[in-house]
């Protein structure tokens, strides 16, 4: 059982060190990571409160973590606040912004929205149980609904607006590209892909990384979802959104 006083003191020491370090100092990102790890429980706690509103908990935790990173960067230990008190509004704000931005692109009946959320949860659950993506029939059997209802729900899910996929992320936060340094290397070497490089490199980091993982590193959507800690359906939406936009921009 951790001693809260010690945790608070450790926090204080870490925040003091973080504030004292120069921006380019490599130690700064190490301390930042420690602070993020030690406060992820707060993000999970807050995210759980929003978990029954149709979005996967993992996605909410990821968005909440962006709020946490912002709070860490802005926190001044000298002002006498507890960090958790300071961070909570930022984390909640980030999650609320995520919900506000994720409006439906087209009008989808409430029944389908709810069914979409159930299907999304079932995909996550069965993927863990089966250690592979479930078939549509397996989802239908699990939910005791018709196969066509699952298809309808999946189509409805793809009607979710993905406009904010990038804006929901802090431009100063480490990008997926930072975490997966091999992304750009994956674009090297294969001749027929050469002409696509400028197109891909012009994409926002997040979209580029997911597209490269799927179509250049041959990872399945489920593998990408696991790697990034987001839902498979979220990966699917990002891929569809990115490719649709790419094609539209190529036709302009």
């Amino acid at each position, binding site marked *: 059982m951790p001693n809260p006083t010690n945790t608070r003191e450790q926090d204080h020491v870490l925040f003091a060190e973080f504030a004292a370090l120069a921006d380019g100092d490599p130690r700064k990102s190490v301390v930042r990571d420690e602070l993020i790890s030690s406060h992820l429980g707060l993000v999970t706690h807050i995210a759980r409160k929003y978990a029954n509103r149709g979005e996967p908990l993992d996605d909410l935790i990821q968005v909440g973590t962006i709020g946490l990173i912002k709070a860490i960067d802005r926190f001044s230990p000298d002002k006498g606040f507890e960090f958790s008190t300071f961070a909570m509004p930022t984390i909640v704000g980030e999650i609320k912004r995520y919900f506000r931005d994720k409006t439906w692109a087209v009008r989808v009946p409430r029944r389908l929205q709810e069914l979409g959320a159930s299907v999304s949860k079932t995909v996550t659950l069965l993927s863990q149980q089966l250690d592979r993506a479930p078939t549509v029939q397996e989802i239908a059997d699990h939910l005791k609904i018709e196969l066509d209802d699952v298809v309808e729900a999946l189509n409805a899910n793809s009607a979710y607006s993905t406009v904010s996929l990038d804006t929901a992320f802090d431009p100063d936060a480490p990008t997926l590209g930072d975490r997966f340094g091999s992304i750009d290397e994956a674009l090297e070497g294969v001749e027929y892909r050469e002409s696509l490089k400028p197109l891909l490199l012009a994409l926002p980091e997040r979209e580029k990384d997911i597209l490269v993982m799927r179509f250049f590193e041959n990872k399945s*959507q489920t593998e990408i979802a696991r790697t990034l800690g987001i839902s498979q359906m979220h990966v699917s939406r990002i891929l*569809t959104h990115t490719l649709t936009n790419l094609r539209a921009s190529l036709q302009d």
Partner: protein
Amino acid sequence: MNEIHLRVPAQAEFVGLVRSTTNSVIARTELGVDELEDWALCVGEAFNLVINHQPSSGSVAVEFLLQSGGVQIEITGPAGASLESVNNSDIATQLAWTLLREVSDEVATSLSADGAITLTLKSRVVASA
């Protein structure tokens, strides 16, 4: 019934119908749900490729054959095309081929006597089937 046939005008606005039909068909295979949208995008790109040369005339036939837990899909464009129209080096064509090659287990191109291009896409065979 393991064959589904769809014929739509060779116009870009019908790509959505082709994609959603593909979704419904793939849902009936033993491929994972995470391959559903991949295939919808892939068939959409194939549709765009075969109408590339004549986007406003004739029709496109899409034939789905469900087999061995997977699927074979043939997309045949309107007559009067040449293979060069699906093999040129513009970025949109390269992007389409990247998707086709990555999603399909096998891709084949053929040209009929009247110049109709057929793209044949095969999914992997599902082991449990």
